[in-house]
Every structure is written in C-alpha cells, then in structure tokens.
C-alpha cells in the first residue's frame, strides 16, 4: 500500500508541476489543483498508513491511528477549495481584461 500511495502522490505532483508550468491559465489552474491533491494525500499519509485502527481511545485496541493529520488535511482541503475557486475567478477576469488566456497576456494570435 505504501508503494501505491507514494506512486500516486508522485504522479499527481509530476502532473501538477508540468501543468502549472504551462502558458495558459486553464492548464495552470488544473496543475495547481493536482498539486494540492498531491499535497493533501501526502499530509494524510504522514499519520502512517494503517487499516482498521481506531483514532480514539478504546479498551480493546492494540494500535491507534493518528487523528491529527486528518484534521490537518481537512483544513488544507477547505483552504485549497477556496484558493482554487479564487484562482478560477481570477483566471476568468484575466481572460476578460487581457483578451486572451495566456498567463502573461502576451498572446497576439
């Protein structure tokens, strides 16, 4: 499972970085979204991976899952949502103001 999670985080980050470096706003927004997914998954896995472990104290439990990363990742998801919404609106505004969807507004075609 560790290898799978690590691989997915790696692929998401790679896609995110590639897309974020594109010259148009739409792929860039997608790239940032991928990047934030990767980061959220990474943050989530920092509490160590385990199956069927309770996060709160229980008499029968032998091992516990760390609840803190789940709280952290929830916060990060909410903030990421807000930021994505904002950057989409900004990209639309830039499209309207600059007349094209290039990040530098340079496109002449």
């Amino acid at each position, binding site marked *: 499972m560790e290898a799978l999670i690590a691989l997915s985080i790696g692929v998401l980050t790679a896609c995110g970085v590639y897309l*974020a470096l594109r010259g148009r*706003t739409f792929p*860039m927004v997608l790239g*940032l979204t991928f*990047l*934030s997914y*990767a*980061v*959220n998954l*990474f*943050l989530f896995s*920092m*509490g160590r991976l385990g199956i069927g472990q309770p996060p709160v104290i229980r008499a029968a439990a032998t091992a516990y899952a*760390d609840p*803190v*990363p789940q709280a*952290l990742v929830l*916060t*990060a998801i909410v*903030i990421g949502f*807000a*930021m994505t919404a*904002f*950057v989409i609106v*900004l*990209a639309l*505004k*830039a499209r309207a*103001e*600059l007349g094209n969807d290039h*990040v*530098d*507004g340079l496109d002449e075609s």
Partner: protein
Amino acid sequence: MNHLAIAPLLLPLLAGILLLLIRHRGIFPRRLLSVAAVLGQIGLALLLTGALSGGDILVYHLGNWPAPFGIVLVADALAAWMLLATALLALFALLYACQGGDARGRHFHVLFQLQLFGLNGAFLTGDLFNLFVFFEVLLLASYGLILHGGGRARVRAGLHYVVLNLAGSALFLIAVGTLFGVFGTLNMADLARKVASTPPSELGLARAAGLLLFAVFALKAALLPLYLWLPAAYAHTSAPVAALFAIMTKVGVYAIVRVYSLIFGAEAGPLAHLIEPWLLPMALATLLVGMLGVLAATALRRQVAYLVIASVGSLLTAFALDSVAGIAAGLYYLPHSVFAAAALFLLADVIARRRGATADHLESAPAIAQAALLGGLFFVATMQMIGLPPLSGFLGKFLLLRAALAHPAAAWVMAAVLLGGLMGMIALARSGSVLFFRTLPAMDQEGRSDTPVPSPPTPLMKPLPFGTPGGEGSVLPVAAALVPVVGLLLLGLLMTIFAGPIQAHVASIAEQLSRPYLYVHAVLGVRP
C-alpha cells in the same frame, strides 16, 4: 488566563465581519469603523508591549487545551513589536485609502481588516500549521486587495502573485507534513524540544523539511532567486495597498527569524544553524540585486518596490549575523524600513497623480504644483530609506554595520551594505532630479500656484467611473494626501529621536530570542 494575547486577533476579525454587514451603508461609517479598529489595534499592541515589558511571555491556550495537544497563541516581545509596527503602518495606509481610493471596490475595508487579522495571527501563533492557516488568511485578503480597483496591468501582476503564492502554499504544506511525520507535533515549542533529539535515521528528512520551509519563507520575504513576483505586483497595485504590503515581506522575515531561532536555533543539536550557510550570502545578494533594480527602474513605484527587496536583503543580513547585536539591529531596522517604504509608495502616488499621463515614469514632464513641498518630502523620505544621517535609516545601518564587525564575513557585509547604499543614493538622486528639476515648461500658465491641479489637463484628471484603469488619476487636495506621508516620516523621526530607548527595547527582544528555552518553558509549562 490573560485574554490580552488573543485580542489583537479578535478585533480585526470582528471589525471585518461588522464591515461586511454594513457594506450597503454609506462609505463614511465604514471608514469610521475601520479607522477605529486600527486605532484599537495600536492600543492593544501598546498594552501588550507594556504587559510584556518584564520579559514575560503570554501564552493563550485556545479552548483551554494543554499545550502540545491544543492550539496556542504566544505573545512574546518579538510578536508585540511586529504587531505594533503593523498597526501603525496600517493606520497611515488606511488614512490614505480613506481619501477616495477605498470607494473603488466594495470590500476594501473588509479585506483590509482581514489582512490585519492574518498578519496579527501569523505573528501570534505558536503552531506551525496555524502559521500556514494565517498565511493563507493574509494571502487571500491580499489577493483581493492587490486587485482592488482593477485594470489590465494589475490583473496580470495579480495573477502571477496569486499563482506563485499558491505554489508556495503547496510547498509549505509539504514541509509541515514532513515535520509532522518526523516529530509527530507541530507546536513550535514542542518541535524545538524534540528537534535536539532527532534520531540519526530521520535527520535527512528533518533537514529537508527545514530547508523546504526556508524556501517558502524566502518566497514570502522575496529573497534573491524568489523575488521576481514582487516588483510588478507592488508597482501596479493601488498605493495604500502597496504601502500596507511593505509589511508583507516582513512576515516572511519574521517567520525565518522565529522558526530558525526557535526550532532550528543554537539548541537544536544536529540540526542547529540549519540555514546559516545560506542566509548571509543570499541576503547580501538580495541587497545588491535589489539596488541594481532600483538603478534600472524606469518608474518611481517600481523603484520603490525594488527598494523593498533591498531592505529585505539588509534585514536578513542583520539576522544572519546570528548575534544578539545583529538581531537587535535588524529589529530596529524592520519598522524603519516598513515606514520609509510605505511613505515612499504613498508619496510616489501623490506625485504620479500630479504628472498626468507621465504618471510615475522617470521622464521629464511639466513642473508639478507644490513641487517644493513634494520635493522636500521626497528628499526626506529617500534619505530615510537609503540611510543617510541623521535619520533612522542611518541609525539602522550603523547598528547593522557595528554588529557585523564581530562576524567573520564582516568585510563582505560592509562592502555589500555600503555599496548598496551608494547605488540607492545615485538612483534616487537621479529620480529626484528628473521629477523635480529637469521639468518641461508648462503648456498653460494658469492654475499653477494655488490649485493643486496641474495645468495641462489630461484624460487622467477627469474622475473616471469605478473600475477603470485610469480611475486613480484624480488629484487629491495636497494637505489631506500628505497627512499619511508626513505621519509615516514622523514615525521615522520619532525612531531617530527615541533611538536610545528603542535600541534598549529591541536589545531585550533579541536577548529573549537568543534564549529559546524561555519560549519553550512558557508554552509547555515546564519550569526552567
């Protein structure tokens, strides 16, 4: 529990919410509430400074959860100092905005208060994840503010600013996540305690996380390779916002000082002095590159933006000296550079509005009205910024150079700081002479002496409808427009007159910072 530590957070948050509720009322009640809230924050910052004067550290446990488990706010002398500088700066930026700039967007005052909420939170938090949250709060507010008023150039610069900071936030979260994975805590005091006993197998991870965190803070502070977002963003936003943003880079500087004196400081065992080999060379290079930018800039506001970068270089040079005297010098220099840069941003706007279509481009234009008054203020502000005697900039530089004497790289520091000062002086002297002396003959003789409106009427002089790019061209009455500028310059003057007591105060802050165990004990409740 003393609730004073959380008050600087609650006041701007409540003011922001209230402002949102009364957004359909006239502009006057909103201005009144906003100014009152900022005045209240100045009062709170002074109260906090007074309460901490004995060297205490106030710790506020939110929800009364004990320290490493719950979230804490920590008000120490450094946090109070930053709060005071922020509130004073905000007052004058707001007074300038209240002369019409705030009416160009519906939510200026709301965003302004939330920006202060984020700034105060970043200074007060004792938890690395909450530092991230407050960074996001202040960034989200700043995204709104930087676009305030709209316009092509502003939207383009704003887009770059937003995207870069989103990438920075992703890196911040990765660093925070790695630190949590290694140490199992994000409370700064708890981290400081655990870092010293990092197991050797985790050392590489912890070091990578620490350096990644440095990269994030360097992006916020606009340190050398990561400063490219700043000049365009600051040069194209509205003047009061640019003035307020003079403190934004200092949040990055604050985070560097806090994290690398507390968590990765002298007591961190194998991870001690993590960024020391990087910080000084990068700070000196930032100073010189910033000054090169000042020399090369073709518009006044861009020049001031590069001055902000150069001041970050000087500041981090002081903190990189890693001595009590160096940190004290940096802490004296910090509010000075913020006030001076803000005064220059506002002054550049006042001047640009009087030059019609030439705006703040460093080209000859017809002489402006009240050139003597504006030129005099420009002279004082640049002297303060560059650090010529007898003003506060000189004292800051002097303290910095004196602290550098004891450092092995003293020659490099001296050379870079003095050369940077010279470059800045040449550039600003040139700007001043272009703006005020090398003027073209006026095309029209009337209206030169009494009215502040410059004689050649240009399209920018007409009041433009809300949201148009040139809508900021309207000319304010000179007296009202200059009150905030003079106020900021007076703050610098006060810092010069009361340099003795202020120096003693910042020395005590530096003293406290050099003993991070005080912070750890205060937060975790362990007796020293």
